[in-house]
């Protein structure tokens, strides 16, 4: 699935560089769910996530000439999306306008198993420190391994592994406590 997207995106890249907007639209369609989902999981606000996704693609359009391949394009999108999400969260923290738990919920949860548990898990992920949150999202949403995550976040692989380990322990502990309280 991922390699198909990489090949498809790579095929559209040359035409987009030549100014073919329909090819660029193809790139947007092929990658919009990835960018939007990362932004949504990070910000937990559909409107903000969509605005950020739009900005990321417009930024991509400006930088198309510097993109070398489909794989490079996808890696570029992930890196820029995560960095913009981190910036947005830090800005929001500074402004202290919106508490994460009060952030509006614009879309219904994707889970069909236990919507409440999944929703709680998403809230817990959103409460993680920015870098840990980025690592968990890239690991379990984008299915990236620690080496790939390290390259996107520009940090050592061991740091990624330790932060992931700490984040998982924290999430697991909080989920277990919640389930114990419920039972």
């Amino acid at each position: 699935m991922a390699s198909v997207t990489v090949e498809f995106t790579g095929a559209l890249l040359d035409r987009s560089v030549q100014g073919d907007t329909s090819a660029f639209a193809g790139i947007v369609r092929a990658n919009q769910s990835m960018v939007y989902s990362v932004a949504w999981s990070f910000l937990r606000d559909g409107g903000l996530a969509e605005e950020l996704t739009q900005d990321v693609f417009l930024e991509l359009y400006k930088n198309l000439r510097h993109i070398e391949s489909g794989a490079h394009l996808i890696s570029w999108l992930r890196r820029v999306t995560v960095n913009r999400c981190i910036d947005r969260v830090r800005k929001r923290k500074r402004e202290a306008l919106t508490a994460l738990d009060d952030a509006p919920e614009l879309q219904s949860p994707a889970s069909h198993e236990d919507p409440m548990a999944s929703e709680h898990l998403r809230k817990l992920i959103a409460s993680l420190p920015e870098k840990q949150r980025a690592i968990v999202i890239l690991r379990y949403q984008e299915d990236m391994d620690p080496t790939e995550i390290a390259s996107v976040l520009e940090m050592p692989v061991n740091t990624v592994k330790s932060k992931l380990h700490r984040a998982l322990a924290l999430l697991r502990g909080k989920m277990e406590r919640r389930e114990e309280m419920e039972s």
Partner: protein
Amino acid sequence: MNDFEDRLREALKRREPSAGFAERVIALVPQRRATVWTMHWRSIAAIAAVLVLAFSAGLFEWHRQVERAERAEAANRQLMYALRLMAAKIERVQNRLEKSSTVVKVDREDIKGAL
């Protein structure tokens, strides 16, 4: 892979932006491109204005330098002319003085001889 990781994957399933998202992005692309071009033209106009100003200032300064040099050269020429005139006058006066002292000397000798 364990159960908790599966639950994380489930909770973090991908989702789609609202319908027509790609079209909205594409609709903004030409605007963005026009904005970029407008910015380019503005930058070019600003650079051109700065260059014209710098060139004009340079040309003005060059003219001033040339005029100053010409004035200095004219003053130099006048000074040299005045010095030459003065030297000629001094020479003439000196000649006259020499002539008049010779006449006096001859006259005295004549007087001695006569005595």
